[in-house]
């Protein structure tokens, strides 16, 4: 069996890529995707632990995460569309009127 550390490192890497993407990219849609990447890294950890611990609860949790993430992205895209109507842009740097 593949040791659990491998899974952890892999998902840590995926998670970090996601975080870096959120930090680095300016396009809102890419940022959404990076957040999804972070969530999928979590899913990977969950499934790995579930298998490792012989406990199905972790895999059920993954379903929760997937369902919620879908809902979240639906709302997120709706907000993005609404914003796009006003700003004609998906660049998050356009949104900086609320400050100080």
């Amino acid at each position, binding site marked *: 069996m593949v040791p659990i550390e491998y899974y952890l490192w892999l998902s840590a890497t995926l998670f970090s890529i996601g*975080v870096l993407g*959120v*930090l680095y990219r300016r396009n809102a849609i890419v940022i959404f995707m990076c957040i999804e990447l972070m969530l999928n890294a979590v899913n990977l950890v969950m499934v790995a632990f579930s298998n490792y611990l012989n406990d199905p609860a972790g895999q059920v949790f993954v379903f929760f995460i997937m369902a919620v993430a879908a809902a979240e992205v639906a709302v997120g895209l709706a907000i993005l569309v609404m914003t796009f109507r006003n700003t004609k842009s998906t660049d*998050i*740097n356009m949104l900086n009127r*609320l*400050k*100080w």
Partner: protein
Amino acid sequence: MVNINVLITLIPLLPLLGFLIIALNVHKISHKKSSYLACGTILFSFILSITVFTHLLSLPADQRVLSITLVSWIQTSGFSADIAFLIDPLSSIMLLIITGVGFLIHVYSIGYMHDDAGYSRFFSYLNLFVFFMLLLVMGANYLLMFVGWEGVGLCSYLLIGFWFKNHDYNKAANKAFIMNRIGDLGLLLGVILIFINFGSIDYQTVFTNPSEVEVTTLTWITVLLFIGAMGKSAQIPLYTWLPDAMAGPTPVSALIHAATMVTAGVYMVARNNVLYALSPFTLQLILITGLATALFAATIALVQNDIKKVLAYSTVSQLGLMFVALGLGAFSSGIFHMATHAFFKALLFLGAGSVIHALRGEQDIRKMGGLKKLLPVTYITFFVAVLAISGIPPFAGFFSKDEILAHAFAYNPFVWGVALIASLLTVFYMFRLFYLTFYGTARDEKQTMDHIHDAPKSMAIPLIVLAVLSITGGFMNTPEVLLGSSWLQKFLSPVFASASGIEIHHLSHTTEYVLMALVVALTLVVIGIVYVQYVKKGHVPAGEGRLTGIQKVLYHKYYIDEFYDIIIVKPLFWISKTGDTIVEALAIDGIVNSMGRLVTGSSNVLRKLQTGSIGFYIFIMVIGIIMILTLTTLTGVAGQ
């Protein structure tokens, strides 16, 4: 027979009720209604106070303590405070003064404020003030006293800045507020120390076994409490706010800054006499501070030309005299002087108000003069007050001042000498003020003089009542040498019983007679000098530019305001200025005091962190996460 507890509870509640009704309907309520409501509630409180007072008198002398607990306020482990009232001889006397004088000043305000736009607002503040003041003197524990203490400070702030359209007045209000905060900090620390050492903040618990606490600690407690009193009662070095506080309407000066609020410090020290009796150091400190203030303020008053400023410095000086009495351990003399002072100083202020009212806002005595014939009621009542404050027998001030001077002489002739000089200076500036205002030729514009009218009824009646009180008030404590019975002293003695440990020296009757005669003779001589100077020669003080030497120093109040400005305000300004020049440019001048500038400065810098950019926010979040993870790993906190 109504339960006495209900009556006691009603005393503070009525003004509160008046305040709430007026404040909530401030625009709808007619002027008439609001003034009737405000005066009515205070009058009713006054009647209740008399009832409570007579009830107290009907009890045997050693049982004259009523304490009632309304609500258990806070109950945590080791700390409890109730909303409870304590009525004993001391607080009953305070109640009578506050509600009695308060009522007269309310009535006076009906006439004085009659055409002011903020009429109802004014009365609501006045009622609120009376409520807090009553809370202050009736509270049975330090916390309740502190609530009242802060409350009167707030009302004073609101009323000084009552005419908020004037920028200077707002500044004066802020100054009073800030200076008082310094004092309040001392008071608060003192109360905390009391709680730590006595485990309670209830007067009765604290006063039962004061000697269990070490003398050093007691000294700290009393000094801190006294710092609170310094702020509230305008003693050196925290006195400069009081003269500036004269920006408020004159009835406010009379009620808050002469008769009641500023005496809260005197009341508080007297209330804690048990603690003060055990810390001779603090008593010395009080004595010296009081003496210095009495003399210092009196010299400043000599050359002031604003009628209210003169009275303000006179108040500071008289408060100093009260503290001298407290410092000598003669607590009842201090309270006695406080009572008579409430009468004649309120009268002086109201009289001054009447003059200002007649001259349409003129406050400079150089422009007055010749008002004797034009304002007869004001003239006579003002004259009574001047005689009372100067200590001419048999007016009220004579008895109370004489008592303090006698105690001072018995303690140390030097103290007596300084106090005597201070009171002779008082005679000087009071008569100077009096002559310049009412005698000589009219110096104001002719137009004003033609339309001049004496005080209307609502203003005249309080003046007359106060004048009667200023004449007769002294008889409540006529000393035995003058064939009296020292009634007040005996009445108050249960409260100050445990403080009798302090040795109060007694003079032989002959000495007392000689001293009295000497003081009165000197007073008359001073009056003569003033008369020659200002009436016979018709001297009018010169303008600011022509003053020389000591006069100039006095006129500028020893440059104390400038001094504070240089050693405290300026350096703070400098720090914040060099700290960030942008702050200077953007800070809202005037409202923000110098400490505020420091905070606003850093605020302005810090808020720039909130850049509005999502990328930046997330960046900081990630930095935070990395910091947390690294620090935890490095310090190895995890896994312990």
